[in-house]
């Protein structure tokens, strides 16, 4: 196969059995949404635009969880552990290295790499021990809770890595934002229009990349493992390796969220790894429909906006609403509310697929 035709065959995987949207209708809708997202800064205050990057920051973690939980069927409740590890790593690295020469970008790569390494070590023990679904959830949750408690007690001056003080429960601040080296002056990505476009581009790359991944051979295998691990194993796949790889990719995405969030707000706290923080990604992904990347993104954005507007108006009920939403989703629409809403329109197509 020539390299050009290989490239097009990879591109064709952008739609396939593991992703819902397909055909001209979906892609024209997709283009409209993308154009609207691109046009948005032209119609809004740049301060608001910068603030709203907040929503994008979380989507990476949500997509990672969709990959691990929705596609891979492994309940990882501790994605915030990787978020926090990467966030803190980014803070420590950039405070020590500074923001010149594109070192913040190196810090981003190192921080995401560190969270992936952490996921690989943890995942090795979990998946090669072949523990069952429920245990995976509670072990990963325990890991993030212990990390939170560990970081919360690092208030003393002895808890410093180089120039970076960890600051215990108050959290670490004052790390530089991501900075792109550019001829004629570095571009500092403050919460502003530039950061908006950079994050949007990153999001687009990750989304399309993940679509290709889940429709590839690899993606089909992890879905097969979700559906029936024993059968997948009998067909000759090493279930453990596939699960570990999925876990590492998903966790690296959580790490990416952590770095973007830390750089966006110049701030990270232990609470970002706590019980409440850990529960929110579960709500976003479960409500949207975890078995599909697109519905995960729609659900995450919708839930985040509801949550945000509730908390902005000082309502203490935001978390209660989240909890209720989660219980109702599980009881009434176990595949996710967004998927439940669109499935009547999808019925004919999925029926055809079933016959194929």
């Amino acid at each position, binding site marked *: 196969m020539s390299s050009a035709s290989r490239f097009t065959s990879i591109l064709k995987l952008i739609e396939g059995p593991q992703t819902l949207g397909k055909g001209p209708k979906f892609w024209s809708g997709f283009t409209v949404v993308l154009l609207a997202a691109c046009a948005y800064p032209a119609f809004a205050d740049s301060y608001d635009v910068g603030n709203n990057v907040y929503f994008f920051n979380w989507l990476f973690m949500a997509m990672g969880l969709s990959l691990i939980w929705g596609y891979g069927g492994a309940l990882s409740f501790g994605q915030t552990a990787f978020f926090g590890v990467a966030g803190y790593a980014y803070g420590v690295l950039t405070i020590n290295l500074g923001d010149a020469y594109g070192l913040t970008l190196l810090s981003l790569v190192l921080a995401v790499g560190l969270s992936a390494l952490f996921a690989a070590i943890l995942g090795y023990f979990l998946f090669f021990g072949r523990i069952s679904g429920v245990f995976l*959830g*509670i072990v990963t949750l*325990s890991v993030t809770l212990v990390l939170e408690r560990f970081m919360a007690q690092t208030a003393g001056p002895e808890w410093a890595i180089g120039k970076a003080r960890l600051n215990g429960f108050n959290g670490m601040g004052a790390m530089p934002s991501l900075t792109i080296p550019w001829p004629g002056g570095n571009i500092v990505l403050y919460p502003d229009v530039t950061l908006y476009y950079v994050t949007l581009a990153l999001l687009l790359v990750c989304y399309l990349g993940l679509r290709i991944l889940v429709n590839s051979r690899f993606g089909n295998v992890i879905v097969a493992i979700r559906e029936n691990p024993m059968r997948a194993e009998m067909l000759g796949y090493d279930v453990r390796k596939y699960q570990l790889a999925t876990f590492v990719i998903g966790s690296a995405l959580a790490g990416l969220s952590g770095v973007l969030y830390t750089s966006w707000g110049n701030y990270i706290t232990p609470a970002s790894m*706590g019980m409440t923080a850990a*529960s929110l990604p579960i709500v976003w992904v479960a409500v949207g429909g975890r078995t599909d990347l697109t519905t995960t993104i729609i659900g995450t954005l919708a839930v985040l906006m509801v949550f945000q507007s509730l908390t902005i108006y000082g309502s203490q009920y935001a978390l*209660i609403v989240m*909890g209720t939403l989660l*219980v109702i989703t*599980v009881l009434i629409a*176990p595949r996710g509310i967004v998927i439940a809403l669109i499935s009547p329109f999808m019925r004919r197509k999925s029926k055809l697929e079933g016959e194929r």
Partner: protein
Amino acid sequence: MEFLYSLFSFFYQFGDAFAFLVLSACGLAVIFGMMGVINLAHGEFILCGAYVSTSATHMGVPLPIAIALGSLAAGIAGMIVEVVVIRPLYKRPLDTIVATWGISMIVTQGTLIVLGTTMAGSGTPFGSFTVGDYSYSIYRIVLVVMALATLAALWLMFTKTRFGILARATIQVPHVAEALGVNTNLIYSLTFGLGAALAGLAGGLYAPTMTLVPTMGAAFMVEAFVTVVVGGADIFLGTAPAAVVLGFIKASLTSWQGQLAGQIGMLIAVIIVIRILPRGISGKILKERA
């Protein structure tokens, strides 16, 4: 003499850790072992037990009765949760984790809204005694006794009572038990209620020693989780030995490096144990027996 003092100190710490692990985990272990459900609202049943028993103490109820009331309240709450949320999900055990997590969020935040950020504690009863240079709380010794008594009571309940036999029959082959006239739905409700009541008991027992805040349940979760993971599905062959092993690790590390080191050490031990004994201690024992 010095050696004996430090030996006593270690045993005290070990007993304390053991009691905490057993009491915080046994409710979770009963529900998981019997029903295969991991109850993420476990911490909130502990919260319920702690708040109810402390309120009762404030109203002048003697501590033992207050603790029993806390346990009862948590048990009733547990049965309600079972009927409303868990029962429709029996065919989807993984979803019960997510649903109970939702309940946990609702209860934690609800408690915060209704009862405020903290509740006045009732103070640790019984005072203390001195061995060597250190003083020890008598109440902690009581907690160790209570942990052992709870295990003994559970053993009697599951082996000697009619409920225990019906419960074990229901867990082994549900449809046969049902065909023989056992009301399996009732058994599931009672089992879940029992687990919640045990969580409430832990809450009531530890309430006098802790600050009462709506998020206090989370303080028990890590310990409860790791004990159940290491122990596996059987409470007597699993939870109890797991609590011994983990209590030993926790006590050693705590006396060496402090509270947090104990917790981290325990978690690392758990992750290693998973690799070696994926089905926990009880899984290992039962497999060898079979």
